[in-house]
């Protein structure tokens, strides 16, 4: 955190000053470790084993916050008797279908709901990364469940969890993660001691956690611990994701993602969402509890925002205009399709996949097989110059004279040259004032897309074809201003917020959205950001003039709430758990919820409220159902539905690992997304043969001095001079084994590429002992590429493409490689080196097509 989010780290330092104990778990000793009380080196890719060890410790010693767990989690809920655990099936849950490499989740459901909930065709849900939809709300389950409040029922969640994690002992943690037992116990003790009415603990992760073939389950394990210890919805608690881009939260909420529409509404699927009603019901799941029951109003209001006057109740608000998914249309599948000549044009908007995405060669070959590429950036990045200056140009795999891709570089406006909102990592929207006009041809994205749309609409204006109606009917009349006709960002924000069609009155809350076409709402979870016609995200009341929650600085979704599920900060009766941890509580005199934050609960629903039989939606939430977006109103220790790889987290080895899974016969996540394309490959892992060809583990992350793929730091001299070269950090022990010298060179080889780096031999890296065997891991920064003030090889070139099955994010935090002293060869010799390794590792399949100068036309 000190390394990648230094200013956020000031709050950790504040906590330390107040006596908090800080533990840092990382494969390498970082600037965060330097300030932590205890540092735990871990083998990359084994976090579930570590966290599962904590779950085991909590349950084995009965250290859960029982009152919280009973009231607010699904610990007491009874699961189907058809369920079988990984303990029974050697690493599989019940329902696995080897044919589709996915689960039929019937047996995972709550008892009595086997026929109504859960993914049936999970492989289809995997292809559309369905897990992502649940960022704003829970997953469909029936509201009425069977419970055993004594937690003794053998199939209650609490007992299932105990059994599932029974073998995650301190010894197993040591064997799997390489974390010595005493260190583990120190962490376990400290974490569990900070639990209960008076105390909380917080778990902070950076989003490298998501870049694993089991990434979602990492976070799930953290959530289980935090629920067991009563650390959710309370001040000083939580699972905090430190995201790494200024508005990556915003770009998920208002998604530039293939499978989502704004506010986590799913992009319709061709077969599952044929009609508007199918689509809405798939979201709201009739019968479940919670606020998602308003899905029809959210959906109708979004379509009304898109197609304005053309969208009417009679035509289902132009639902028929929406494109339909049929499978995986994610960025990695798309890149493979590019290599195969199936994609004509590609826009890159402040993104540099030639350096930042896994398998750089695949990225660059994909771009080399397009008809045209539009790059919008501040600087001439590697993704714009792949045809001119790339490893493939060096090896002859891309020949500029034979590469047909037409490239447009369109300069972008910087953050000070346009106005608009970023949504930062705690869901807070902050409006930026514009300081000055962008230089020369530089323009905002708002300008570029508004005018691109305007021109396309003009060019298609005479069309009477069905396919062009969505373009021509689009509500695309934003007011513009200034010399360049810049669209009004505030007008767009108002549309995002939503308003009444008849009066133009901005809505104040998403509960005002209507399903009859009388409201427009561009992103329902953002409703309120323009309440009362005031840009709430632009609020800048000084921290000196308000309390510590600072509710009048910017605006957080939903409803300006700063801590989600904060009903849980009070006990079931609505009283603060303790004076010290007071946050939101029930004021009996005024018969309403009150506190420092906006209560995350119906304001006047008393803690004693119990829903009438058969109630659903909001009415179905009891006065102690603190997790109001969940289908059963509870925090989930066990996930009956919505995850691909199991209802409980399970340790699987990374797709590339030097060791055998110590816990199960199943080596890696059986549901991970794998691509069989010839450009892609996976280095062998046990029990496969030839695993000695790539004996070392490498992991990658950020340096304080650089940013992501380097486009905003390698080009900036102030930052470039601080970390001027690509390097690899190795332990003294590995340096000795390989003959690497401090400040000398080394090259690293995987089944995809070979890269070189300067060597830093440092005591900050350590070998790990696993089951008597020593495993070495090395670390590299992923910021370097061929352009800019400082340059170097890109470590993402080493990775292949294997994805998490829930969200289709790639495993790019751990892989295997070989390491040799000295610089890598160049040209044909470089290809020969990688080929030799591939041959020795038994990786079959030739290299992919290089450049298709005449790609076959796709059949329409």
């Amino acid at each position, binding site marked *: 955190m000190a390394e990648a989010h230094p*200013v956020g780290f000031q709050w950790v330092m504040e906590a330390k000053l107040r006596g908090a104990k800080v533990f840092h778990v990382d494969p390498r000793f970082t600037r965060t470790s330097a300030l932590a009380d205890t540092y735990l080196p871990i083998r990359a890719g084994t976090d579930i084993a570590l966290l599962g060890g904590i779950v085991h410790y909590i349950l084995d010693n009965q250290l859960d916050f029982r009152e919280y767990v009973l009231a607010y989690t699904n610990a007491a809920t009874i699961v189907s008797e058809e369920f079988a655990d990984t303990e029974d099936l050697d690493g599989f849950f019940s329902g696995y279908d080897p044919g589709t490499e996915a689960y039929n989740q019937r047996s995972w459901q709550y008892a009595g709901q086997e026929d109504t909930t859960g993914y049936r065709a999970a492989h289809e849900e995997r292809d559309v990364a369905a897990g992502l939809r649940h960022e704003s709300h829970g997953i469909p389950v029936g509201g009425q469940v069977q419970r055993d409040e004594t937690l003794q029922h053998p199939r209650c969640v609490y007992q299932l969890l105990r059994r599932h994690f029974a073998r995650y002992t301190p010894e197993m943690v040591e064997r799997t993660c390489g974390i010595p037992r005493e260190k583990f116990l120190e962490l376990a003790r400290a974490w569990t001691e900070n639990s209960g009415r008076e105390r909380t603990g917080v778990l902070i992760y950076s989003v490298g956690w998501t870049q694993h073939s089991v990434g979602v389950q990492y976070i799930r394990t953290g959530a289980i611990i935090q629920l067991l210890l009563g650390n959710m919805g309370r001040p000083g608690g939580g699972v905090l994701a*430190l995201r*790494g*881009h*200024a*508005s*990556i*939260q*915003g*770009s998920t909420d208002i*998604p*530039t*993602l293939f499978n989502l529409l704004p506010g986590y509404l799913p992009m319709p699927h061709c077969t599952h969402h044929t009609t508007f009603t199918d689509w809405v019901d798939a979201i709201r799941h009739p019968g479940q509890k919670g606020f998602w029951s308003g899905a029809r109003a959210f959906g109708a209001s979004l379509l009304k925002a898109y197609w304005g006057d053309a969208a009417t109740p009679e035509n289902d608000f132009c639902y028929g*205009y929406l*494109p339909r*998914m049929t499978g995986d249309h994610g*960025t990695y599948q798309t890149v493979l399709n*590019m290599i195969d000549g199936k*994609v*004509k*044009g590609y*826009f*890159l908007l*402040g993104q540099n*996949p030639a350096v930042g995405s896994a398998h750089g060669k695949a990225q660059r070959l994909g771009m080399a097989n397009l008809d045209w590429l539009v790059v919008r*950036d501040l600087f001439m990045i590697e993704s714009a110059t792949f045809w*001119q200056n790339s490893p493939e140009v060096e090896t002859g795999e891309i020949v500029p004279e034979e*590469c047909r*891709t*037409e490239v*447009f570089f*369109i300069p972008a406006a*910087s*953050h*000070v040259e346009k106005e608009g909102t970023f949504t*930062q*990592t705690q869901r807070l929207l902050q409006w930026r*004032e514009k*300081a000055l*006009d962008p230089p020369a041809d*530089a323009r905002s994205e*708002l300008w570029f897309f508004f005018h*691109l*749309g305007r021109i396309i609409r003009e*060019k298609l204006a005479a069309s009477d074809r069905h396919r062009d109606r*969505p*373009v021509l009917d*689009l509500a*695309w009349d934003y007011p513009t201003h200034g010399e360049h006709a810049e669209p009004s960002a505030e007008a767009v924000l108002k549309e*995002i917020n939503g308003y009444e069609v008849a009066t133009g009155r901005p809505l104040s809350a998403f509960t005002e959205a209507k399903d009859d076409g009388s409201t427009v709402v561009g992103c329902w979870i953002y409703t309120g950001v323009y309440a009362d016609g005031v840009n709430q995200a632009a609020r*800048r009341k000084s921290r000196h003039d308000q309390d*510590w929650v600072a509710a009048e*600085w*910017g605006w957080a979704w939903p409803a300006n709430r700063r801590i989600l599920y904060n009903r849980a900060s009070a006990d079931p009766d609505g009283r603060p758990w303790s004076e010290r941890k007071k946050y939101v509580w029930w004021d009996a005199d005024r018969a309403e919820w009150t506190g420092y934050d906006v209560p995350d609960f119906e304001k006047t629903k008393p803690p004693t409220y119990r829903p009438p039989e058969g109630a659903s939606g909001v009415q179905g939430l009891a006065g102690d159902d603190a997790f109001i977006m969940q289908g059963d109103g509870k925090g989930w220790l066990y996930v009956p539905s919505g995850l691909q790889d199991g209802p409980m987290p399970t340790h699987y080895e990374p797709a590339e690992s030097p060791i055998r899974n110590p816990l199960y016969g199943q080596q890696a996540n059986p549901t991970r997304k794998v691509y069989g394309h010839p450009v892609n490959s996976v280095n062998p892992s046990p029990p496969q043969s030839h695993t000695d060809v790539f004996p070392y583990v490498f992991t990658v992350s950020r340096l304080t001095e650089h*940013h992501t793929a380097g486009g905003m*730091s390698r*080009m900036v001299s*102030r*930052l470039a001079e601080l970390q001027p070269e690509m390097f690899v950090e190795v332990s003294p022990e590995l340096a000795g084994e390989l003959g690497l010298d401090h400040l000398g060179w080394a090259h690293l080889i995987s089944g995809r590429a070979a890269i070189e780096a300067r060597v830093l031999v440092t005591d900050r890296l350590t070998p790990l002992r696993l089951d008597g065997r020593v495993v070495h891991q090395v670390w590299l920064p992923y910021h370097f590429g061929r352009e800019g003030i400082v340059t170097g090889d890109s470590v993402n070139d080493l990775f292949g493409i294997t994805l998490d099955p829930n969200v289709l994010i790639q495993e790019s935090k751990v892989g295997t490689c070989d390491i040799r002293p000295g610089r890598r060869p160049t040209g044909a010799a470089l290809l020969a080196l990688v080929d030799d390794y591939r041959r020795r590792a038994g990786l079959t399949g030739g290299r992919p097509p290089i450049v298709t100068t005449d790609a076959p036309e*796709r059949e329409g």
Partner: protein
Amino acid sequence: MGVKTFIQGWPVYRQLTGTDPLGRGAAAQSARSAALTARTETADHMARSVCPYCAVGCGQRVFVKDGQVTQIEGDPDSPISRGRLCPKGSASKNLVTSPLRQTTVRYRRPYATEWEDLDLDTALDMIADRVIAAREATWEDADEDGRPLNRTLGIASLGGATLDNEENYLIKKLFTALGALQIENQARI
């Protein structure tokens, strides 16, 4: 400047007649030093902004003088950052004023070995033509069972995590209307 003023401004005069006979402090202060003030004080205006790097969301104050950014520093009012910035945030002025910034359109023809210049309006028009053509060539009305698809898989986009919500909103809205599904950003990576 009168002779007297000139002489009074002469360091040796000040040294000999003032409180600083060794000439190490008040007497040694040059006219430039005496006139120095923070350029944030003399800026034409200040915009309240947010750091463009990671997602902590630190407040920034952007000072502008004569149409140039002259300083970007932390906003002390921010409850998130309390006026502080990391090295990247502190380098924001360098980011936006960098001489390496590409501020004009560049165009690479198919099979070309060099960039060439292109007018922005022309570029936009050409891109619009290419979007329409790619959509034409790859349009899918319905699947083999006649279920509607309304889409093109011939156009893809990547990016958005560094952009504004309003920008992402328009990007998604336009591409969705065009039937382009393969719209992705860093959140997938």
